[in-house]
């Protein structure tokens, strides 16, 4: 995953026009607008390449329901531009300020689920000098990060629906195959979900946490233990018997846990879609280090996915989430002189090293090595690299806030 080498150069920003939506197309340098034709299951962008600058898209929704158009960074995760709420039959113009680099375009039917018609989109030309308008940079970072959060939750919702349905129906094999990849959407935005207080305990608490806090144990990990039931004599991560106050869920309990997971995920979507939902610049950069802390405290030790052994998927998703959050404030860091250049260079290099190390064990799409098969020496190498990245990353907030 050498994407960091690329993202280093696409330090683009979407100008504030993205905030307001329909803005007269006064840019495009005579190239004309790039036409985008949307149907329910396609997203045809007429050009594969365009020149850098204020790129104008003329988007027509020929489908049957509301759609949205998105421009991703080369990691296919971080959003650099988005036009929402395009109704059937509508044609809208949307202008994105794009720096040279590799992007992906996609649409989202009914504004949930995975990207439809993901296609590479190249922007050529010479990079323009970064603006030093702090307010503008901050607005862009916040806007795009909120879009990204919504996009991840938008993908989480249908993934949870499919996973929960398989579990409730007793199709354990299918549910097991969906467990790790479904969680990835959640793990990428975990600090945001945790900020909502009581949702994370319901969705993502491990048994030992719930028992200790006297909460009803629900969510992903409750289901995990049914799907990967403990062998006789097995222990929980805290050394207690795996069968202490636990028995395999009955079909009725399965229905209830599945419905709970779906309901709590819907609640999460409602919260991040609320008009007043916002994040601060510090939330973004702190979220980045927070995700690495999640890795350091839960994933490295193998306590997170105690029964499934899918810790490395969570690990990778946390790292991706950290990388996206960092990517959102990276431009701001670059405006902070020599110090900013040095810090971003260091963070870029360490992200690249960590991604390289993780890639030795698989990928989120293809699956990762069972964490039980990872040796102590390999865990130490991963832990060392997490520390190597976390140290410079922990300096990011102070730099970005100019403290």
């Amino acid at each position, binding site marked *: 995953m050498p994407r960091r080498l690329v993202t280093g150069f696409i330090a683009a920003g979407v100008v504030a026009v993205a905030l307001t939506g329909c803005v007269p197309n006064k840019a495009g340098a005579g190239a004309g607008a790039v036409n985008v034709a949307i149907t329910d299951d396609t997203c045809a962008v007429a050009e594969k390449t365009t020149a850098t600058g204020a790129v104008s898209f003329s988007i027509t929704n020929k489908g049957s329901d509301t759609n949205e158009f998105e421009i991703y960074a080369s990691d296919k995760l971080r959003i650099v531009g988005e036009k929402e709420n395009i109704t059937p039959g509508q044609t809208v113009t949307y202008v994105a300020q794009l720096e040279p680099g590799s992007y992906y375009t996609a649409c989202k039917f009914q504004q949930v689920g995975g990207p439809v018609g993901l296609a590479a989109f190249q922007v050529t030309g010479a990079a323009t000098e970064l603006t030093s308008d702090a307010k503008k940079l901050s607005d862009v970072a916040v806007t795009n990060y909120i879009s990204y959060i919504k996009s991840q939750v938008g993908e989480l919702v249908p993934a949870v629906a499919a996973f929960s349905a398989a579990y409730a129906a007793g199709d354990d094999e299918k549910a097991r195959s969906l467990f790790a990849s479904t969680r990835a959407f959640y793990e990428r935005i975990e600090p945001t979900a945790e900020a909502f207080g009581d949702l994370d305990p319901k969705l993502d608490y491990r048994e030992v946490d719930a028992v*200790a806090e006297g909460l009803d144990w629900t969510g992903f990990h409750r289901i995990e233990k049914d799907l990967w039931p403990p062998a006789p004599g097995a222990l929980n991560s805290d*050394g207690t018997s795996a069968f202490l106050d636990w028995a395999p869920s009955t079909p009725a309990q399965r229905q209830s846990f599945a419905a709970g997971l779906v309901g709590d995920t819907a609640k999460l979507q409602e919260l991040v879609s609320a008009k007043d939902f916002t994040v601060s610049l510090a939330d973004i950069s702190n979220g980045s280090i927070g995700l690495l802390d999640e890795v*350091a405290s839960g994933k490295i030790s193998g306590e997170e996915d105690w029964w499934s052994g899918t810790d490395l998927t969570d690990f990778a998703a946390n790292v991706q989430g950290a990388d996206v959050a960092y990517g959102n404030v990276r431009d701001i860091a670059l405006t902070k002189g020599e110090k900013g250049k040095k810090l971003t260079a260091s963070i870029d290099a360490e992200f690249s090293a960590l991604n390289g190390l993780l890639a030795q064990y698989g990928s989120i799409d293809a699956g990762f090595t069972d964490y039980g098969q990872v040796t102590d020496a390999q865990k130490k190498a991963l832990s060392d690299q997490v520390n190597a990245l976390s140290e410079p990353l922990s300096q990011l907030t102070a730099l970005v806030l100019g403290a």
Partner: protein
Amino acid sequence: MRTDPASTDQPGIPPTDPSGATATAAEDAKAPHGVSRRGLLGLIGAGAAGLAVGGGTGAAIGANAASASSQRNAVYPFHGAHQAGITTPVQDRLHFASFDLADSLTRDDLVQLLKDWTAAAAKMTAGQPVGETGAVDGPEVAPPEDTGEALDLPAAGLTITFGFGPTLFQTTDGRDRFGLASRRPAALAVLPRFSGDNLSPEISGGDIAIQACADDPQVAVHAIRNLSRIAFGRASIRWSQLGFGRTSSTSTSQLTARNLMGFKDGTANIKAEDPKVVDAQVWADGDPSWMAGGSYLVTRKIRMIIETWDRAQLQEQERVIGRNKGAGAPLSGGAEFTAPDFSATGATGKPLIDKAAHVRLAHPDQNKGTQLLRRGYNYVDGNDQLGRLDAGLFFISYQRDPQQFIDIQRSLATDALKEYIRHVGSAVFAVPPGAKAGGFIGQQLFA
């Protein structure tokens, strides 16, 4: 740093401690031989710390030993109404051991073990070697009674405190080995599970606890080593813990020390100079009667996620604790000993001391006035297999009833600090009153 031991050993010239304290001639007179205790201590202190934590960290902790308090020559009486080592000004070093009794042990054997331990503890706390003949005065053809590493060292404020675990009275599978089940205090029961617990059974619980505290690590280790040797065949160590850098003060004469998070710890601790509070919060009542003048001891091994903590922003660290890091003053303002104002709010209307701050949730004002007498220690058990420091706080508290600890620990369920710590060991013990001269520890229990 430390001068050549020989040069400090000149008659009439008191050796100077790096902390600035000057030993008096009277203190010197207590030295068993003419050897400079301080010169020797520096060397031995470093060596023992190396033993304690192994390898590279030894040197740093050895340096800490060199600047230890000036109470090195204190001698605390072993006999008394209460056991020493509770309200005694907290010493700098800890060696704590929890023992399991042998299956073959009878009630009489147990009584004899307690008598043997009492005799040895009385000698060692007085700065003397154990046994009739000590370390070097016995027969040439017999192993010495005392292991010898504390020869030439003063008592160093050594206290040895004994406690009885719930399993002494009844095993977990319900056996009453010593006919003591009916005498178990109702208050003495295995602690419930708490939020954030990640306990390992092998470093939790135990039949009998021995807490050895001293201002010299070698003196503390010597005590546990010899008590353990005396018990071979009768009791063996289940788990043990070395600690350094006291994290609490139990006397107004002591400065508030810092824990490994870098914060002052135990500012609002119970102090020996406040007998009303000590009586109300620390000493057990007479139910059961054999516990009158005793106390209850809770230990919690609290691993710190040091690496994550060290990366946390200063304002986050201070928010989590609820005090500033420099002076230890509450975030509501004032100095270290200013009472925290939990209702004070800042410009944005948010409380100055966060709702989840450790100081708020642990404070007596938030816990119906409940207080604990804390005398915990920092620990560094080398590193884990990931190369992270295996370090944290070995929490020790004494209270009239373990329920005090339980209530406070429950109120800490939402503690912001939880993100950075993990409780990995837990134990509770009934600490009997002190032994009278000629008696033995726990005598009242067998009466």
